[in-house]
């Protein structure tokens, strides 16, 4: 599948190699839920760098802290201690509004269940974040239409999420995440709710589209086959990074996802 950026996206970058300068950098991340005797340490001193256009899978069993890590990296959750920097700028020093604007302009999100607005059509779900950022409806629609067509959803632009299959809805979520030309795409179990064949197809779409547009991908999964689609994998246990694996050039693949 060719993921050359849509024609209406003149600034789209070609497939970019991993850059040595990290776009996202985390140091000494600790996140504790609760207090006193009920306190649970979800993150316990995590250090992590994510390079531009790189792909990283975060693996581990349930409750190991992988989703908390994704939320802290994306500025959704504040760490109890430690820092996250995007292009050198510490997220913790930004107010909620600045962090919200940052998520809108720099990050894209793909959740397990899509989290599409059920009342909006596919194309409206994709243009919403762009319109929130000030892009006109006409311009946002042109971009969104091109993205949906590229992701195999031509003719389905005006369907609502309930009128799409799970795989189609997840492709809309991918289009929504990428339409804003984010620096980093965060995906939380993006194929977790799909059957194997559909999951494989959606995963290929997500990884290829991120690579083609130069976006870094941070993907949480508990499935080693899904993680194999990324260049790097970190395995978490009890809030820490237990080990890291970097695949040799060309060894990653989505052929047997899930």
């Amino acid at each position, binding site marked *: 599948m060719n993921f050359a950026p849509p024609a209406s996206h003149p600034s789209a970058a070609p497939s970019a190699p991993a850059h040595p300068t990290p776009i996202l950098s985390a140091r000494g991340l600790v996140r504790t839920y609760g207090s006193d005797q009920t306190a649970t340490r979800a993150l316990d001193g995590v250090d992590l760098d994510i390079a531009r256009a790189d792909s990283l899978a975060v693996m581990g069993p349930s409750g190991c802290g992988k989703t908390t890590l994704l939320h802290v990296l994306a500025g959704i959750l504040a760490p109890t201690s430690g820092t996250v920097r995007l292009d050198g700028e510490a997220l913790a020093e930004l107010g909620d509004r600045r962090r*919200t*604007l940052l*998520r*809108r302009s720099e990050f894209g*999100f793909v959740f397990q269940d899509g989290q599409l607005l*059920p*009342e*909006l059509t596919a194309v409206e779900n994709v243009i919403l974040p762009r319109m*929130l950022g000030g892009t006109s409806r006409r311009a946002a629609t042109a971009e969104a239409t091109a993205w949906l067509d590229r992701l195999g959803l031509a003719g389905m632009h005006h369907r609502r999420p309930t009128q799409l299959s799970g795989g189609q809805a997840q492709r809309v979520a991918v289009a929504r995440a990428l339409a804003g030309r984010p620096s980093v795409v965060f995906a939380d179990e993006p194929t977790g709710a799909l059957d194997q064949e559909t999951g494989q197809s959606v995963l290929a779409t997500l990884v290829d589209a991120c690579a083609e547009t130069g976006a870094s991908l941070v993907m949480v999964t508990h499935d080693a086959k899904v993680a194999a689609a990324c260049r790097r994998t970190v395995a978490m246990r009890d809030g820490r990074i237990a080990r890291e694996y970097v695949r040799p050039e060309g060894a990653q693949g989505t052929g047997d996802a899930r």
Partner: protein
Amino acid sequence: MNALLASAPLLLRRRGALADVLPVIAFAAATAITGTVLGGAAAFVGRLPSDGEVAFEGEASLIPFLVSCAMVASVLLIPSAVGLGGSAARLSLARREQDLASIRLVGGTAGQVGAVAVLDVAAQALLGGLLGVVLHLVVTPPLTALDFGIAPFTTADLLMPWWAYPLLVISMVLLAAGSAAVSLTGVVLSPLGVARDSRTVRMSVVRLVIWAVLILGFLVFMQVGGAIFGGVADGMLFFGIMIVFIGAVVAGVNVVGPFLVWGVALLAARTAPTPALMVGARRLAADPKSGWRAVSGITFALVIAGFLTALATIVPADGARAVEDRMMATAMSTGGLLTLGIAAVLAAVSTGVTQTARVIDQAPVLRAQHIAGAEVGQLHRARIAEITLPVLLSSVLATFTALLVVLSVLGSGAADPSAAVRYLVSVAGAYALVILAVLVASPLVRRYAMRTA
């Protein structure tokens, strides 16, 4: 079935204070208002001479007309109070959907789950109904201080007979159970969750036709009804049919309202230049009935305000007129304001409850939108857009309905420009009420959007 019912209290354990309290508040308000309105109407009926004698002077000469006015007020208010009860039942059911799916998962059949759901709603209606009766008993003594221009009512006058109270509560419970049962027909309760009918919503044009037929029927009746029925039972038949027609026309606003909301929302969604309007309009187009329910109370209050402003122009306020005229003016003014006040309370409860419920329903989506970069202010603006469209439509419909009815019944009584000013003040009050209802739920939007769990 017995085993399932026995385990239902465990499965339907309360989820959160606010989600549980909202339907109970609505049931309580509906019961209290219905009891107070019926008690008031009965108090006027109690003043009718028992021997059927017709008085031509003094207070007794006014009572038949005031009884008629009380009946009109009851016809106008009680359907809205009952409607609030129905809305509360649907709200209660919506709050329980995940619990119902859990019961399916542990082996309950769709029928058993439906029965448990209806019983759950009925239990909340019972609690709300009992609280409503207490509320009615508490507010009744202060109402004796109202000056209707006639001999003051006592608390005993304004209370219903004792047997009416259990009947009122039972009626509320049955209404709630019935509404819940009807709501369940569009829902598939599966072990993996609750699926609403996902067909694209389409409002039938029949709604518009029904309302148009009601309007035409009313206009024709007002032209020829007097000649046909005026002589029957001293005109009481004509008067009775007219009251039924007025009630039907006012109730018809709730039939045509969702159709208009749907049509305008579809147009707005397709062309909305801002994300707030696009999201708000799409939500309305997807569920125009809920969108309309959120403002139906306000629509109704505006219709009442329209009636009142027009009526006020024909009631003599000149001190030189006869004693009976002054009594009548006082009765109409107090009764009208009381009716408007009750309608405003209904509107406030209805709008506040439905607005808060919608925010609770949208909690996961609000959080996802905030994560994806929507500011809390933008989420607020989408909610305001969602409510503004129906409010604008309701203002137009209410004004049209009030003018139509008043001009048909009273002729050109509403020609006084000051009446228009008073009406505009009422419209501004309705908008203030909507803004207040939206603001009441605003802290919830922020809390859900920024929730860390």
